[in-house]
Every structure is written in C-alpha cells, then in structure tokens.
C-alpha cells in the first residue's frame, strides 16, 4: 500500500454543527487545498470555507442575451431580408410577433448554457476516475456523513498534524485516499480492440438503419410518392386501352385544329403554277417573316440566305437561295418546298402556319432583291 500515491487525507463527522466547526478550524490553520463533501448543501458552509457567491449568473445573462439576439436576427433575416412576404398586411419586420420566440430562445440559450458551463467547464464532468470514487469516504458522505478532505498537494500538508487536528475536532473516523493505480497508468489508445469493435458496431448499425429507412421503410404503405400515381402517362403501356398503349389513336377522319389539307402532294410544278401569295410585303408581314426565317431557316441557309450554314461540317450544306433557279421560282413553288421538304430538308408545315410560310417567302424575296439590287432600286 505504501507505494501508492496519496491524494488526500479525510475525516468524517456525524453532525452538521461539527463539520461547520471543523471547516472553520481548517480554514483558520491556513489550508487552501481542501474540500467538504456533504450529502446535501449545508447552510453557512460557503462562509465557513470563505467561498464567494457563485458568479455563474453571468453565464446565464450573456447566453440569454445571445439567445435574444439570435432569435431576432434569425426571424428578421428570414422575414425581412431573405424572403419578404406580405402576411395579413403586417410589416416585414413585425417586432411584436417576434416577442414570444425572442423570449423562448433567451430562456433556452440561458438555461442550457448555465447547466453546460457548470457541469462541463466548472466541474469538468463527466469524471468517474476521480480518486474519491469507490472509497468508504464517498459512500458515507453520499448518505449521512459530513466529510472534509485535505489534499496532499496543499503547501502546509503534514499528515501527522492533520490527523491530530481531525481527532481534536471530534472526527468519527479518519482515512487516507490514494490515487487508483489503474487510473494513473491508464493510457488510452485509439487502436484498442474494444474501441475498434465499438466503431464497427456503430458503422454496421448506422448503415443498416440508413439503408432500411431510405430504401425499405419509405416505400412501405402508407407512404406514397407524387411521381407514382394511379394514372397512365404518355409512352407507357396500358392494359386498359387497345394496342396496350396509354395513348389513344384519334378517331378516323379526325382533323387537327387549324389544319387545312394540302392539295398539291408531290406536284411541285402544279403548286408553283396555281398557288398565289396572299400576303402583301408590308412592314408587318416582313417582320414576321424575318423572325420566323431567323428561327427556322437561318440555321442551315444562313441569316442572309447565302447557304452559309451554322451547322457546316455536321450537316449537308443547302444551296444558296440567291441562285438563278430559286429567284425564278414562283412564290407557290417555294411554298411547296416549305410544306413537303426537299432532299435533306424536312417539311416545315408543323413549325410554320400558312400565313407565316407566306411571310417567310416575302422575306426571302426581300433578301434576294437586296443581293441583286439594280440601280433603279436605289431611287
């Protein structure tokens, strides 16, 4: 036993009056590293130990005010800065409405900080490795005895003197408290098998529960998802309708809204002869023509219809629209190309309405004329 390291020397007393008297004597003798352990707080003990009033209230004040500030800045930022909304005609920064939450968060911050600072900063808890734990002394003071303990690091520490002092004060029993050998020699290592095993168990449990929640639990009834509804979507198979298709065929003879049949299928020459442009090349029509030309025609034909495709090398280049051939075509002949397509060019009848097609043709005529302008055009 003697090689053990001494922590303190203790004495137990059996009445509150005796312990108060004993503490006063110990304090008078000039000891500083001593403590008193009682099963409940004793009135007058702080004075006997010359302890000042606890200042922990300041923690409450500071963190309480921090809570107020946090609440008002959170709500103010959310309601007045980040996403201002008019709610019942109230101002964006409705201070009276903020009152309750400002109060609640002040109390919350204040209470949690006070307890947290007390337990974890002042007391340095959790601490189950203190030498006093598991001693007879501790078992007595946590039930019905009042103990005093003078630590070995006290500058005036002298074991024989202390024992005499305690005996003289009427101590019921005295005993030394030693540091626990195991605690002193304990060296925590991160590669401890138990710790690694613990990490492994935590990892497995976390992975399984996350997997189970995200992939199994969320798909059990009554959970349902908006993208999974009891209705047919386009392109899906359906067992209800014929041809197992969720999309229905139109009734035979159905004409699409606004559709007018084209009478010159595969008859370009006839179309060129019989179709006449109904639109005048007014400023309004040319504007429509330019807009539609720039959208649908210019990617291949170029903005000026020169055949300088922006899709060069990726798609066959179309011929220029300023060629002799196209210039000599009638409007109806060009119209036929827009409706039926030609070579690689597809039909544009879906993209352009009838009037738009004629407007585009008018615009192409303007481009052609400007590229082959005569002197008379300048007048």
């Amino acid at each position, binding site marked *: 036993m003697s090689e053990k390291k001494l922590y303190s020397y203790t004495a137990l007393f059996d009445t509150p009056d005796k312990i108060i008297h004993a503490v006063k004597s110990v304090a008078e003798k000039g000891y500083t590293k001593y403590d008193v352990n009682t099963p409940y*707080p*004793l009135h007058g003990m702080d004075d006997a130990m010359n302890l000042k009033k606890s200042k922990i209230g300041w923690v409450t004040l500071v963190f309480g005010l921090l809570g107020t500030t946090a609440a008002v800045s959170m709500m103010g930022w959310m309601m007045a800065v980040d996403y201002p909304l008019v709610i019942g005609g109230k101002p964006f920064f409705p201070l009276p409405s903020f009152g309750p939450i400002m109060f609640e968060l002040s109390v919350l911050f204040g209470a949690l900080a006070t307890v947290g600072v007390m337990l974890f900063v002042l007391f340095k808890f959790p601490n189950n490795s203190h030498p006093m734990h598991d001693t007879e002394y501790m078992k007595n003071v946590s039930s019905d005895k009042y103990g005093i303990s003078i630590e070995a690091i006290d500058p005036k520490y002298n074991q024989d003197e202390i024992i005499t002092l305690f005996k003289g004060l009427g101590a019921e029993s005295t005993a030394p408290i030693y540091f626990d050998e195991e605690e002193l020699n304990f060296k925590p290592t991160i590669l401890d098998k138990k710790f690694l095993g613990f990490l492994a168990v935590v990892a497995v449990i976390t992975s399984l529960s996350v997997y189970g929640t995200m992939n199994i639990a969320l798909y059990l009834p009554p959970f349902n998802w908006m993208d999974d509804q009891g209705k047919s979507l386009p392109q899906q198979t359906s067992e209800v309708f014929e041809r197992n298709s969720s999309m229905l065929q139109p009734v035979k003879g159905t004409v699409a809204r606004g559709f007018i049949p084209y009478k010159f299928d595969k008859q370009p020459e006839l179309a060129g002869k019989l179709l006449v442009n109904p639109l005048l090349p007014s400023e309004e029509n040319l504007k429509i023509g330019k807009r539609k030309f720039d959208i649908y025609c210019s990617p291949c034909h170029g903005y000026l219809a020169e055949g300088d495709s922006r899709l060069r090398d990726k798609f066959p280049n179309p011929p220029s629209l300023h060629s002799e051939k196209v210039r000599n075509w009638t409007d109806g002949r060009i119209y036929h190309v827009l409706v039926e397509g030609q070579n690689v060019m597809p039909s544009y009848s879906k993209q352009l309405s009838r009037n738009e097609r004629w407007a585009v043709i008018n615009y192409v005529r303007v481009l052609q004329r400007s590229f082959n302008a005569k002197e008379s055009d300048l007048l």
Partner: protein
Amino acid sequence: MSSEYTQEYSVVEGKPSLRSLDEIISKPLNTKPELKYYLALLLTLTMLGIGAIGLSFSLYYGTGLWGNNNPVGWAWPIVNFVFWIGIGHAGTLISAILFLFRQKWRTGIARFAEAMTIFAVMTAMIFPIIHTGRPWVAAVYLLPYPNQHSLWVNFNSPLLWDVFAVSTYFTVSFVFWYVGLIPDFATLRDRASTKIKKVIYSITSLGWRHSNRHWRHYEMTYLILAGLATPLVLSVHTIVSFDFAVSQLPGWHTTIFPPYFVAGAVFSGFAMVQNVLIFVRKIFNYEHIITVDTLEKMNKIILLTGTMVGYAYSMEFFIAWYSGVNAEQFAFVNRAFGNYSWAYWIMFSCNVFIPQLFWFKKIRRTIPFMFVIAVFVNIGMWFERFVITVTSLSKDFLPSSWAYYSPTIVDFSLLIGSFGLFFTMVLLFAKALPAISIAEVKAVVDGAQPSHHEEH
C-alpha cells in the same frame, strides 16, 4: 430576525435518519415490484395499445377517420393537446415557482411533479404532430430550415410560437429535472449492489462527488433555472392561448385568455399530481415524506385556481354583453344554452362548484374526498378545452356552414391511448428513478442544517 417567527413546522414527519431516507426512497429501485404494480402496468399498457391501434389506423387510412370536419377542423387533437400541456404546468409550478417562494413542502413532491411535467408534455406533443396528417414530415412543416423553395415558416403565427414554446419548455424542464437528479444518482451509485447498476449510475451521475465547491455553483444554477422556468411556464400556456385568442373567432378573440389558460393549467395539473401522489405515497410508504399537510396545501391551490377559472368564465359572459358585439354575445349564449350546453354545464360544475368543497378543512384533509374532487377537476378541465374549441367552431359567423361535431371511435382510442402513454411512463418512472429527491428531502429534515447557535 428572531428564529421563533420563522420557525416552520417540519415538512418531513418523525425526523427519520438520513440513511433510512436513502433506503426508503431507493427501495422501489432495488426490489421486485408487487403484483399490484404489474396489474397497473397491464392496465396502462392496454390503454396504450388501444391508442396505438387507433393511431395506426389513422396513419394508414388518414385523418378522415377522426370526427374533424368542416367547420370543426380543430377538434379532439387540439383539445387533448391543450389538456396535456396544462397537466404539465403543475410540475414546473411546484419545482420552480414554489422554490422561489421558499416553500419547503414542495421538496417531497417536486421530483414526481417534474417527471409528470415531462411525460405530460411528451404526450401533448403527439397531438399537434399527428394533427398535421403526415407526422413523418411534421418537422418540415414546423421548423424553419433552408429548403428548396427558399420559404421560411411564418413567424407571425401563434402556431409557430407554440412550436418554440413547447419545445423550449420540454427541453428546459428536462434539464431542470436532470440537474436535480444528479446528486441522487451519485447516492444511488454509492449504494449500488450490482456492477451493471454501478455503471449506469456512474454514467448518469457524471461523477458527482457531493463536493461543497460544486454545491456552491449547483445551488446557484438551480436557483437560476427556477428563475428561468417561472416565466417560461407562464409563457407556455399564454402562447397556447394565443392559438385561440389571436384568431377572429367569437368566443376565442378575448384578452382574458392568457391568464385564464394559465390558471386553468395549474388547476388541472395540481389535480392530476394530487391524484397520482395519493397512490404513490400509499404504495411506496412515503406517508411521512408526502404528508397530508402537503396534500392540503395542494388542495388550497386547487381551490384558488378553480375560483380564478370560475371568475374567468363569468367575466367572459360579462365582456360579451358589455362589448355589444352580436356575434360574441351569440357565441356565449350558444355555449351555455346551445347544442353543447351539456358539455358546458359538466365543465362549469366540475371546475367551479365541486372544488368549492375545499373550503372545508375536513374535506381538504380527507384522502378519498380530495381524490374524487380532483378527478372531477380533471374531467371538468378536459371539457373546458372541448367547450372552447368545439362550440366556437361549430357555430361561427355564417349560419349556412354550422354543423354539429361528434367524435369517432378512433378519437376515443387516441384519448385513451394518451392516458395509457402518460400513466405507463409514470409507472416506469416510479420504478426506475428515485421518485422523491433524496438530497432535497435530507436538507429539510429536522436537524439537518447547522443550528448556528455558536455564532449568535
């Protein structure tokens, strides 16, 4: 000040030794419970099971299984929520407000009352969450968090204030309760007979050493927490009452609501605590710690708050007449003499007439009498919330939308389940943790404090 003037009669009878207090308070923790305990647990678990079945059906088929329907959209779930939150208020009143008033008689009952607060608030929180219809995403509706819509919750809404108030109340009550438990855990740790108990109590006591250098901060922290919890408890039911009072509905839109709700909450909470304690002191032989004097003091508070509630009922009628608002006058005449008059008169007689019996000292100190009266108070206070919520909604401004509300069997199962949950937790608590604060009771036993004769 002469000590004769401040000499109080002892709150703990018979001057028990400190070690015997350890033994008697930790006895339920160390012994196998009697058959009665298991029967009680079976009863509460059955009630809890009924609630669980009702809740499972509600979640699977949806809240259409409840009686809630236009115009009574806030029906039993909100009634139960306000009822249970109210029950919770007694615990904080006992542990915090009576602590600030230096009422020593609170020490025997504070721990149990605080535990009941925590359980009542937990029970209460279930109802608004399931009332959202999809409780698994309730946090998304209730809390401000950055989301893909860049939208925030509406801080103008009393319902949101409620979220903050109730969650803060729960957190602070829990911390207050746990701080009180730390020294007791240390005492239990040093008495532990088995290794597993020792490990558990070592962890929960955090290594408390009963050091006076710690007691100094501990007592100050306890005082500060009591100081914070006092306005907090008043704020919680005030904010719950705002849920009603801030709306425009006749019968709800009154300024008397906050104090009236707080008084009602303390009233019902004390009745519930008194009911439970009568059983606890009998079963665990705590008659000398939770004395008849203590129960009598609780009954006085029930009488006081019951009379305040009665005053509020009358004042509501006076203000309805005095305001000259037709809709308001109709709402109150309808309350007392309309379709729901049966509920109104149950409420009025249970809350106002019956507690007046506590003016008689004999009744205040006779346990069967006070038990029955407190049961009536609880029934009456549940009906108070029912009357407020349902009568105003069922007949509002527009006669064409009036409708009579009746609950369904699922509503009943949820109410039974909430009682089951609460009492199951109470029973488990009484078995698992010290039901009375060991350190606090020791400090108020006669002769536990220094006599100070030497100094004077």
